[in-house]
């Protein structure tokens, strides 16, 4: 990471710490803000958060590794999470899964070459009566079939 990028990131985190405070309960909110903006929390950012909140870097890392929606490695611009729980499985998740993989040319857990989409699994979204379901960034799509799923993915930038 370049020095000026590091400085910018440090300043950004300093502002976040100012906004949310530097006690432990603020940690999640700070991490979520960084995640939202950069799509991942770099190792430098983790250490800066730790420094400013007066905790150990490994504790920040521990929190990030605990939550599925926080990442410590670069992700695509959009994150697509397909429900893999049993109800969606019965509703035809497998076909949707194959169609998506074929369309994007990657398998789950990977990011497209143009950095547009990262594919992931998720556990139950609470849409068991409307499966198969997937979540694109913050929006939930239900009643998927292979064609609809591919169309949705093609529309996102």
């Amino acid at each position: 990471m370049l020095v000026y990028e590091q400085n910018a990131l440090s300043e950004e985190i300093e502002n976040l710490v100012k906004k949310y405070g530097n006690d432990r309960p603020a940690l999640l909110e700070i991490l979520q803000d960084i995640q939202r903006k950069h799509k991942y929390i770099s190792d430098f950012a983790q250490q800066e958060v730790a420094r400013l909140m007066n905790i150990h870097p490994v504790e920040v890392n521990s929190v990030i590794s605990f939550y599925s929606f926080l990442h410590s490695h670069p992700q695509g611009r959009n994150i697509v999470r397909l429900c893999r729980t049993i109800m969606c499985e019965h509703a035809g998740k497998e076909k949707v899964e194959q169609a998506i993989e074929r369309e994007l040319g990657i398998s789950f857990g990977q990011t497209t070459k143009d950095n547009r989409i990262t594919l992931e699994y998720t556990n139950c979204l609470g849409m068991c009566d409307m499966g198969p379901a997937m979540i694109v960034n913050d929006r939930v799509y239900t009643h998927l079939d292979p064609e609809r799923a591919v169309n949705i993915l093609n529309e996102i930038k």
Partner: protein
Amino acid sequence: MGKRNNLRTPVSQRPHVVPKPTDTSYIGGMVSVQINEKKVSVPLGTTILEACKENQIHIPTLCNHDDLCVAGVCRICVVEVEGMRTLQTACTFPITAPIKIHTSTPMVRKARRHIVDLLLSEHYGECYSCFRNENCELQTLAKEYGVDEYTFGHINSPRHEIDNSSTSVIRDMNKCVLCKRCVRTCIDLQEVGVLEALNRGHDTKVGTFLDKPLADVICIYCGQCINRCPTGALRANDPSDDIWDAIDDPTKHVVIQTAPSPRAAIGEEFGIEPGKSFTGELNTALKRIGFDKVFDTNFTADLTIIEEGTELLNRLKKALVDKDESVKLPQFTSCSPGWIKFIEHFYPEYLDYLSTAKSPQQMFGAITKTFYAQQAGIDSVNIVTVALMPCSAKKFECNRPEMNASGYKDVDYGLTTREMAKMIKEAGIYLPEMPKSHFDDPFGEASGAGLIFGATGGVMEAALRTVYELVTGRVVPFDNLRIEPCRGFEGVKQASVKLERCVEKYNFLEGVELKFIVAHGTANAKIVMEMLKRGELSDVHFVEIMACPGGCLGGGGQPIPTSEEIRKKRAQAIYEEEESLPIRKSHENPHIKYIYENFLTEGPCGELSHKLLHTHYTKRGKYIS
């Protein structure tokens, strides 16, 4: 509602009623509880575990450790509390009402057996090839609760790679049972923060920042986690095979130096109660193993005192007489390699405050491969120096690139107390039955001042005995040389000695109140460093810091287990042995006088001692790249 002991009663149908105290005098006072038909009265807030311990009722524990905060993660200590829907963990349950506790019901026994079984299902490793065989808490529990088969299966291939990247600590996460004792040790007790639980659920493991190898993160190698691990997941890097090779090689002259703390603790490895020193017996055992010479690290501890004391007096002179603003005071001790690495990482801007004197171990290496080689007529190439230390960080210290003042690697191997005990057992020797013998000359005689280096405050006490006498010409004004303010296990101790009627050379110290601080454990070191940062230590002159709780005697290489009680007994053994020694002040050691007359002829802090006995430090910083 079913019968109370019927395990199949749906839990949701059990009544959840905790009896309220009817007598108001209970509140904040004593609570009467019934444990297994025995009525006892305990202070409000006592945990069930503590209450049972006081009443000689055994409750098994795994994640619980006397030095650490309560976690309640292993569940092995579950007991039945009448009125509670589920089993409760005794270690986390504070008694606030007059409850009835049952520690051995069918449900409790079955639950405990299943818990051990579940722990074993993920515990990969064979007991025979594990260094904790016969000293493993998981093994003991499995036996205690009659685990005779793996009810929940058993993992039969390793899931994690063994991390042996560092020179000191090896992590084998296949043996980890996630009790998180190492996490609490690292974060709460030592405040270094290397280890924490990563991931979630079944994937949880104890790991470092971004799961990097230990050598790449900020670990000070104090080894406290090794001493607290209930299984063999953490261990020290064992060089004993290399040492056997050197002993068996007739061309090599193998020299061992033994530090004060291992002597006071090695008996524990042979089943002896803590609190007995085996100095003489250890000497005989080492000679029988095949070490060519057995020397006393206390000799260089005396040397350290002379060098460090002189450095302190030089700094005081520069500050008080020459009014030199650049002189850094207080002077910090530099004997503990864990502390050195800690300050290099966390407070690199304060490295100038450290004494430049090497630790006794490294001084010994440098002296052995120069002065001793010359006196004994042996080529330094053929000398192998081994250091018996209570410490895992010493292994890192002897491998530092700058530690080759003699032209060779000053100390070849650092060996911990545990590994030494293993070597002694391997040689077929039962240590407590050995006849006593003395150390070998020329570094055989050492003062008691060197011996007490093993306990927290010992370096300070030894330094004060010498410095006070050098400056005033009189003995320190304490009964029988026991400088009590330096002793004891308080985290940060502050005290002072007034210097009066000084000898002519040290006139500038007339009336100065020599202030000193003693701290042990890096969490306390952090407190002291923050005080320094805030400028609160401007009137303090000397600070002793040891990285491990209790000083070296509680070091990461000492026998397992360790607790405050055991550390106190070890300290007592050291202080008792010290009082029986004829020489108790470093500067009165005749061999020290001899070495300054014949080898380090320029005196303490002279050019040659700067080359051999002093070192420099590296600014490491805490950024992990």
